[in-house]
């Protein structure tokens, strides 16, 4: 039904796969594969060769790091360090979305509230979130909830501000339509306000995700005895260079997976939006 929905709107994806249809799918797939993995592979090879010649002990080769990765993260460490981190991250993200969207909707709906809070919000958003770690430690102690609070305290702002903006900018005709059909408050929220602001909300969530990941790492670097951030800092303190790199790699993977998961959810939630944009662009 929605022929355009499958297409993401990044400039990369907009690039239509070139090459004639008659040359066959095989070549196209091969070319796609080459494009997707050619450069990363090349980079790995160059890095590998370089590392065998270099004496810089802070840059081990990809093979060493790969080995360290398996040794370090496969097994118990995954349960002890990775899962708790991901749990806190997940909790933080969910809480940020709930708080951000709920508060953003309320603030967006009432003009006086918006004007009352605007300078405050601008200020709080501008505080670099890691700065709040010491404050959170003072108020909450060194606990899991403190880490989650730190994550939320940073990740909630882009979601909150984008929600306010999205709710505020709800189309006037759409609102009048809802008025004229006497749509109830809840239906209006669910069928008009939230969907209408969903593109902005999703933009906010995307920004919030990367902030949340950063704060997960930092909060663990400061006050923790477990977790991905703690481990990486620990490896560095003990000059376990390859292990440290493997931790960075793992964080990168978490980031990529988070981005992919978000992409899937976003495409689902905003199917109508991307579809509509494709149509208007055509």
């Amino acid at each position, binding site marked *: *039904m*929605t022929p355009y929905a499958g297409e993401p709107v990044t400039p990369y994806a907009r690039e239509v796969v070139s090459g004639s249809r008659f040359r066959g799918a095989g070549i196209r797939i091969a070319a796609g594969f080459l494009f997707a993995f050619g450069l990363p592979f090349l980079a790995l090879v160059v890095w590998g060769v370089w590392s065998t010649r270099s004496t810089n002990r802070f840059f081990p080769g990809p093979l060493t790091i790969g080995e360290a990765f398996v040794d370090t993260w496969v097994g118990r460490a995954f349960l002890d360090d990775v899962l708790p981190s991901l749990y806190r991250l997940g909790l933080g993200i969910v809480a940020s979305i709930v708080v951000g969207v709920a508060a953003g909707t309320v603030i967006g709906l009432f003009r006086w509230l918006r004007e009352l809070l605007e300078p405050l919000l601008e200020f709080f958003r501008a505080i670099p979130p890691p700065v709040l770690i010491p404050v959170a430690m003072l108020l909450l102690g060194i606990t899991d909830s403190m880490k989650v609070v730190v994550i939320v305290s940073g990740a909630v702002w882009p979601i909150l501000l984008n929600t306010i903006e999205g709710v505020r900018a709800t*189309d*006037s*005709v*759409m609102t*009048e*339509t809802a*008025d*004229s*059909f*006497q*749509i*109830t408050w809840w*239906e209006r929220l669910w*069928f*008009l306000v939230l*969907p*209408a602001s*969903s593109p902005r909300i999703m933009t906010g969530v995307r920004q919030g995700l990367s902030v949340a990941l950063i704060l997960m790492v930092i909060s663990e670097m400061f006050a923790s005895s477990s977790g991905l951030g703690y481990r990486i800092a620990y490896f560095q303190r003990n000059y376990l260079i390859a292990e440290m790199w493997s931790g960075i790699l793992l964080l990168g993977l978490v980031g990529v997976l988070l981005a992919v998961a978000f992409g899937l959810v976003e495409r689902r939630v905003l199917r*109508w*939006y991307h*579809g*509509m944009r494709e*149509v*208007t662009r055509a």
Partner: protein
Amino acid sequence: MPERSTLLRVEHLRKIYESATGDVEAIGDISFTMNAGELVCVVGPSGCGKTTLLKCLAGLLPPTSGLVEMDGSPVRGPSPAMAVVFQEYGRSLYPWLTVRGNVELPLRHKKLSRAERDTLVTDAIEAVGLPHAARSHPWQLSGGMQQRVAIARAIAYQPEVLIMDEPFAAVDAQTRADLEDLVRELHTTRRISTVFVTHDIDESVYLGERVLVLSNSPTRVQEDLAIDLPPERDQLTTRALRRFTELRTHVYDQIQRAKLGQVAPQSAR
């Protein structure tokens, strides 16, 4: 014609937009009545407050003074007895809902059984000729089809009055003719009372049983004209009738006079 009862009564309606430094009088004094089952076209020069009038009728705007009465009780806000079809179909349909979802939305808070609701929705979508597109999203449809969806949504709501605000201003001529016929058809088959606001003189004469010509702002009713064309109308023969041309010319004159009505005192000075 059977005897009709008064459905909508407007008396000395006045609307002034207030702003910090001065007031703008959009509607001066409008009075008219409308019977059940009538199709009344409202036509007037551009910028004469047609949309304001319509919003007052629909209860979306509170009038400054005067009275709007539905079935004998005053209108104080949006009422379930009215449904509005807006000019900007692209903005009045919700793009995140399917056609069916859009038509169904206003029915959700009506106390209807699931089956009743489904029947109403299906029936309305069929009535506007879109059963094949029920599961599409509005933005996948052409402009004309989108306006059909808006109409379907309005009739599924089962209002006593259907209010249409220049609904076809943004579609091309051919589609427009089709949609006009759709409105005529819905009116004749379902006897829905309709207020149709337009700036198009031909359209008002072709569609209406009555045409209300408005003056320039501050708006008054310039003329309340009965259209004595046969109820069976079609694009070719009706528009070719001599009476059609006469009526059209008459309305055109009225509108010109409405415009001059404001200019005249200045030139007299």
